[in-house]
């Protein structure tokens, strides 16, 4: 989906840890960098992209995972930090 994006495999986690770990992964990269989040099919495939967009990041795509028919990959580009964000 995107060469060079760090892969965060969260297929074994459930909400809210899926978004907590996605947020932490986004904290660790710079603005404009991309991460590829792997999620198990289900509620997280909708909630993680929605939460990422809500926090000001760009969701570049959501698609089935080639490596796992029960999984999805979400490509996210880190946006600018929100005002008041604790470094």
């Amino acid at each position, binding site marked *: 989906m995107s060469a060079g994006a760090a892969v965060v495999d969260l297929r074994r986690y459930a909400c*809210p840890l899926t978004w*907590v770990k996605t*947020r*932490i992964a986004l904290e660790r990269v710079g603005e404009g960098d991309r991460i590829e989040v792997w999620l198990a099919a289900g509620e997280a495939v909708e909630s993680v992209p929605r939460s990422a967009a809500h*926090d000001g990041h760009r969701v570049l795509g959501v698609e089935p995972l080639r490596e796992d028919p029960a999984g999805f990959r979400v490509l996210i580009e880190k946006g600018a930090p929100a005002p008041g*964000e*604790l470094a």
Partner: protein
Amino acid sequence: MSRGPAPLDDARLARWARQLLVPGFGEAAQQRVAAVTVRAVGADAVASPALVYLVQAGVGRLWIDDPETVSPADAGGWLYPPAAVGTPRADAASAALARLSSYVEVAPYPMGGVPSATLVAAPSAAQALHAAEAARRAGIPHVVLEADADGGALVSVPPGAPCYACARSTGAGRPAVPGAAALAALAAQELLLLVASPGTVPGRRFDLVRGVATARPTARLAGCACGAAREPAPGAPPG
């Protein structure tokens, strides 16, 4: 070469997942909270919700500094069962709080121990002033509660801000209502903010009246000793 704190493991992420989702809070802030040692001066029924809050939020270590025993009024609060009446508050609070989280070390205050933040919920104005002044001299963030019925005030003092004596209430409040938790929770939240986001929160005072909190910045009283280190003496060479 210094290394940062270890990433939070899955168990800790799961424990604190809800607050890690709070906008503006994140792993680094949680790690700063987990690294702090808080001295809690006073552990009566008014203070107990704040102590519960600090433990649940994941401070690293909580020292209970209270020389009194559990009173019947304390048993109306959050921490102490009726059976604890008459036992030392520091021991009873430590035991009750330690049961709430395996990630927090709770113990009676070790004489001479050096905390990195202080929560003051002392039973008298003199004790509150003394504890706050010790924290100011140590250069650590501290928050002081002044309970008044089911509300009251709190003064938040990050390092270098106007001291508690500059911003405290001068009148006597009404007796605190055991079990009222809003002021104590607000105080714990404020202390966590000082720890999680050092240097970004100004000295301020909250007044909580009928459930409504209002905040205003604190101002240094003319001539107060807390400004001595920050204001050059007349005629002194520029630093």
